[in-house]
């Protein structure tokens, strides 16, 4: 069963025509695109719509139009996502949500609005001051605004009851993803990062009710696997929270001798350290989760706990030997934070390596060489 699930997952991840979402659409459903990093998917789900992860074109989309809209120093995900729109591959979207993660995402939201007037484009202004007395009120009001707009898209009242039910479903889904991550952290020989990633990402491309049983069954099979640990170093991968690296690059890291024991791939889909509150007014619970329950992130300013402290904690919790800093080319939030992370890692005597990527990268020999050297220098003392 597991092989079949993983093959299906790979098919969904590599398919930029979003065929499962198209089936949903053909059956009369509405589809809402979620541009990274964090999107409150519960709002979409509660309206009976499908939240669809839109994270660029991967390796398969040639940029025929988008290059003329953006400068050469803009990250690939912005260009290829726009290109998907121009090529009609996002024609299935009834709405798309962007948020305040960086200047590029903000402008992409406006470019989308201008070029695709038939799609409802919303932009979430997340709070920037987490210690302000009114921060949860503000976040709640922003979520209410987006909910009201989504209600107009789906034509259904997104009531508190519906939203509370959605919170339960997505808490369950995130708990299963967390279980997969815990298994990989504790027994990385049983589940590779490529397997985990494919399975996880497939969940951003299909209805959550359909994905949960797959996760449950796969988790049981992964747990029952027997495999001997290899002679690898344990690493945390940081900075791939928005644009996603090619799967080939993740494979190279594993082949070169790394057990990836934690990462921030698709971080927005598992943004919370603790489950969203299941009691009380649901909008308030979602707002509180963002303000007080989110993980550290380069796209969420929170001076109560420094981001680099979050990274050091993650290294300690996952018993990692090193950090591989893997930002997308031109990703400003990640690259600015590299300075802070690097300083903290060196102070804590945690080895680190920087590996930059682009989504259309197809040759990995330079990276393989660097990672092998890094692993060799740590394994053979």
């Amino acid at each position: 069963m597991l092989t079949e699930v993983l093959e299906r997952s790979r098919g969904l991840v590599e398919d930029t025509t979003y065929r499962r979402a198209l089936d949903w659409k053909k059956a009369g459903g509405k589809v809402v695109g979620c541009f990274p990093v964090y999107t409150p998917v519960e709002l979409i789900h509660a309206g009976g719509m499908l939240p669809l992860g839109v994270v660029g074109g991967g390796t398969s989309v040639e940029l025929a139009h988008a290059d003329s809209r953006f400068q050469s120093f803009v990250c690939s995900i912005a260009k290829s996502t726009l290109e998907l729109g121009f090529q009609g591959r996002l024609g299935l979207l009834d709405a798309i949500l962007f948020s305040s993660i960086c200047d590029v995402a903000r402008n992409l939201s406006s470019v989308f609005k201008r070029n695709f007037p038939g799609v409802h484009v919303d932009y979430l202004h997340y709070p920037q001051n987490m210690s302000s007395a009114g921060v949860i009120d503000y976040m709640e009001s922003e979520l209410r605004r987006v909910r009201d707009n989504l209600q107009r898209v789906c034509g259904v009242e997104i009531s508190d009851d519906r939203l509370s039910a959605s919170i339960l479903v997505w808490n369950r889904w995130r708990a299963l993803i967390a279980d997969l991550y815990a298994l990989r952290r504790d027994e990385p020989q049983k589940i590779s990062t490529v397997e985990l990633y494919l399975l996880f990402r497939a969940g951003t491309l299909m209805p959550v009710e359909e994905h949960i049983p797959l996760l449950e069954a796969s988790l049981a099979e992964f747990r029952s696997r027997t495999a001997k640990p290899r002679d690898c170093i344990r690493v945390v991968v940081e900075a791939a929270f928005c644009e996603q690296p090619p799967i080939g690059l993740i494979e190279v890291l594993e082949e070169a001798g790394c057990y990836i024991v934690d990462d921030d791939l698709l971080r927005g889909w598992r943004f919370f350290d603790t489950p969203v509150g299941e009691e009380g007014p649901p909008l308030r619970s979602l707002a509180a989760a963002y303000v007080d329950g989110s993980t550290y992130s380069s796209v969420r300013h929170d001076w109560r706990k420094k981001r680099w402290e979050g990274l050091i904690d993650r290294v300690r919790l996952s018993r990692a030997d090193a950090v591989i800093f893997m930002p997308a080319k031109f990703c400003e939030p990640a690259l600015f934070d590299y300075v802070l992370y690097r300083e903290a890692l060196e102070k804590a005597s945690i080895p680190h390596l920087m590996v930059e990527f682009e989504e259309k990268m197809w040759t990995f020999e330079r990276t393989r060489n660097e990672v092998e050297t890094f692993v060799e220098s740590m394994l053979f003392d």
Partner: protein
Amino acid sequence: MITAGIDCGAKNVRAVILMDGRVAGKASVPAGMDAASGAEKAFDAALKEAGIARTDVSKIVSTGAGKNEPRFTNDVVTEVGADARGIHQLYPEVRTVIDVGAEEGRAIRLDARGKVVDFAINEKCAAGAGAFTEAMARALEVPLEELGALSLASTQAIPMNAQCTVFAESEVVSLVHRKTPKPDMARAIHDAIADRIASMARRVGIEEKVALIGGVSRNVGFVKSLRDELGIEIILHTDPEFVGAIGAAVVATDQ
């Protein structure tokens, strides 16, 4: 104990026979299109120089861009690992190694035991490697072997702004049209590579003593430019292009 190290580089394959820690034989052949066959030839030539047979060699370790190509080796080591072991064997006092080969430049910082502390690799752009000097020598219509000595006769420094080989070549053509003396152009070329290599070395942190290895360190013009740029003395080995192969043979010995 007799071991061998094979360095399958981008342009040349080098083989070294190490006999009780001493280089007993060495050979270099062009890599060509088939690194495996180049490795066979280099290994046989090195054996011949050492006056021994294949069966006398206990262990063979390969390194370099084509390190997985030879079928007859027992193990592989990364290029950085091989450079580190090789230089530590030859000069234990060295803490920074700069290796400039045909297609790639590397900077490596070592600790007192010869362990790699940090490293940087520059291979995306040929402007920081030997291929750049080859292209520039062609543009100046000067044999590559004479480019280094030519630049030592320069009387003025000319900045070169281009960051890639193709643009740099057109910059050299502009200098030619302005009747710039060839020694000054040759120096500008070496200063440009030295500038890139020094930036990479600064990324890992330069700690003395510093050794320069790789085929490009045979270019006296480049060595002068790098010494001027770093402002420190640089150790040069008599066979700088063989240090990686020596390191691989040392790894074989240690295993």
